[in-house]
């Protein structure tokens, strides 16, 4: 393991002339990761190599076929497929049987590979009142929480904005997701708090995180507006937010999920990692 992690780092140094530096030692109070899809124009192997150099711990949103590539670089597949899609998922009872099968299969795979988290969604509203959608999500998660608990894998219900990117998505408020988690009340069923999405929907990020940290297992980042770099070009001060997250004693992952627009995407990623290294 030591050798495997050492080799890619050593191999990466010549190519890393853009950043012209050794892999930076990180304070590491927060374990950072990056979402695969934001760097889709690079091969997964390239992304993993660069991520490892930057001191990242994992890659988010990668399927099991990609896990060997991720692990080869000493990284963790930090958030993996669970069940459902953004539009069609837990808020409809008619989906539950199919979702349960997906969960069973994906949680088993995650457990076998030592993968910590699987993702799920509420689905779109389609006119369903919040209370009904909420009850349905709770019922769907109650069906599978025991499997997750036994496997030691956390099911993460993602919060997304319904104002700009995902019109009609139901799990679009922290209070709603937290109410689902409270009713399910399992150490293995938590919310995925996406800072970008929640800044669009409700703001008050640090207070919300502090008040609900026991229901949050994972974070996503992104600059607002635009979902690009999380640097000084956008309205959130990610350093203070990460400081607040670390200060709560959070031990999960904070995964970058922004689309870089600057000339050098890996430089943008390096800056993001630096900003959040508190």
């Amino acid at each position, binding site marked *: 393991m030591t050798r495997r992690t050492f080799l890619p780092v050593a191999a990466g140094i010549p190519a890393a002339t853009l950043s012209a530096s050794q892999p930076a030692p990180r304070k590491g109070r927060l374990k950072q990761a990056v979402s695969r899809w934001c760097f889709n124009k690079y091969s997964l192997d390239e992304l993993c190599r660069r991520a490892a150099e930057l001191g990242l711990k994992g890659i988010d949103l990668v399927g099991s076929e990609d896990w060997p590539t991720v692990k080869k670089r000493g990284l963790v597949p930090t958030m993996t497929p669970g069940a459902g899609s953004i539009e069609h998922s837990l808020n409809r009872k008619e989906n539950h049987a199919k979702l349960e099968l997906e969960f069973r299969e994906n949680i088993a795979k995650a457990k076998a590979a030592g993968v910590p988290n699987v993702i799920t969604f509420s689905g779109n509203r389609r006119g369903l009142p919040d209370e009904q959608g909420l009850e349905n999500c709770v019922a769907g998660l109650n069906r599978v929480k025991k499997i997750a608990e036994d496997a030691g894998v956390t099911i993460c219900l993602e919060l997304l904005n319904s*104002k*700009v990117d995902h019109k009609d998505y139901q799990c679009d408020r922290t209070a709603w997701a937290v109410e689902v988690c409270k009713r399910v009340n399992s150490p293995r069923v938590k919310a995925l708090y996406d800072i970008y999405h*929640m*800044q*669009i*929907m*409700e*703001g*008050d*990020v*640090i*207070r919300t995180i502090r008040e609900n940290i026991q229901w949050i297992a994972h974070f996503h980042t992104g600059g*607002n*507006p635009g979902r690009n770099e999380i640097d*000084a*070009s*956008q*309205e*959130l*001060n990610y*350093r*203070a*937010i990460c400081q*607040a997250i670390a200060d709560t004693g959070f031990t999960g992952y904070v995964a970058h999920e922004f689309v870089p627009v600057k000339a050098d995407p890996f430089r943008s990623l390096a800056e993001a990692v630096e900003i959040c290294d508190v």
Partner: protein
Amino acid sequence: MRRRDLLATAAALPAAAAAQTVQRKGRLKQCATISCFGRKATLEFAAREGARLGLKGIDLIGSSGWPVLKKYGLVPSMAPGGGTIADGINSKDNHAKIEKQIRENIELAAASGVPNVITLSGNRRGMADEPAIEHCAAFLNRVKAMAEDKGVTVCLELLNSKVDHPDYHCDHTWWGVEVMKRVNSPRVKLLYDIYHMQIMEGDIIRAIRQNIQWIGHFHTAGNPGRHEIDATQELNYWAIAQAIVDAGFSGYFAHEYSPLGDPLKSLDDAIAICDV
């Protein structure tokens, strides 16, 4: 009054001369409330030091203090208008009384070249949004002609009802904008408080860009806590100030926080952060 001012000016001059005035780019006209100068600050101190740090005005000072501001070349950038946070223009019962206040205050402001007067929605007290919006619009429609004639802008303040002002009615941008649209006057605008709106709704830059034509004034503060606007809190004020300037905003942008650190150092930092 005059004699006291003269004395104060004389006393202040050597100090002002000793401490160099800070040069700013000044694309954004920045101001501050007296709270930014620390708990014990006098108006004289705030005006002198504010001017030195490059501020253009002091917010929320009544007419008795205007001569002090003017002595230092500062504008009373937001003056009293009518109503209180709890009892404002959302209730028709208050209209006659507030109309009298605001007409007096517009008159005073116009006579002194003061650009803005403030007003407030008042608390909900169980009132639904629609009648309250209609009441606010009706009141502002009663006074807008005078504001237009006098060249004074009436600013309706947005505040958070979640932490600091429970039950305040004008607590979302859409709500304030709806009032503005029904009044549709160049002299009736919103006071968009960035701190309060971050608590209530977030998405600051988008909200400002989309609604800039209805905004007459800004307030700042760090969130959470309402302290410094620096790296200790969740908003990147530099990018927000940049977006405001880029939107073509020509009004005033006032800091309104209570400093935890040295007040003048913090204010210098705040002005530098927003000097885009």
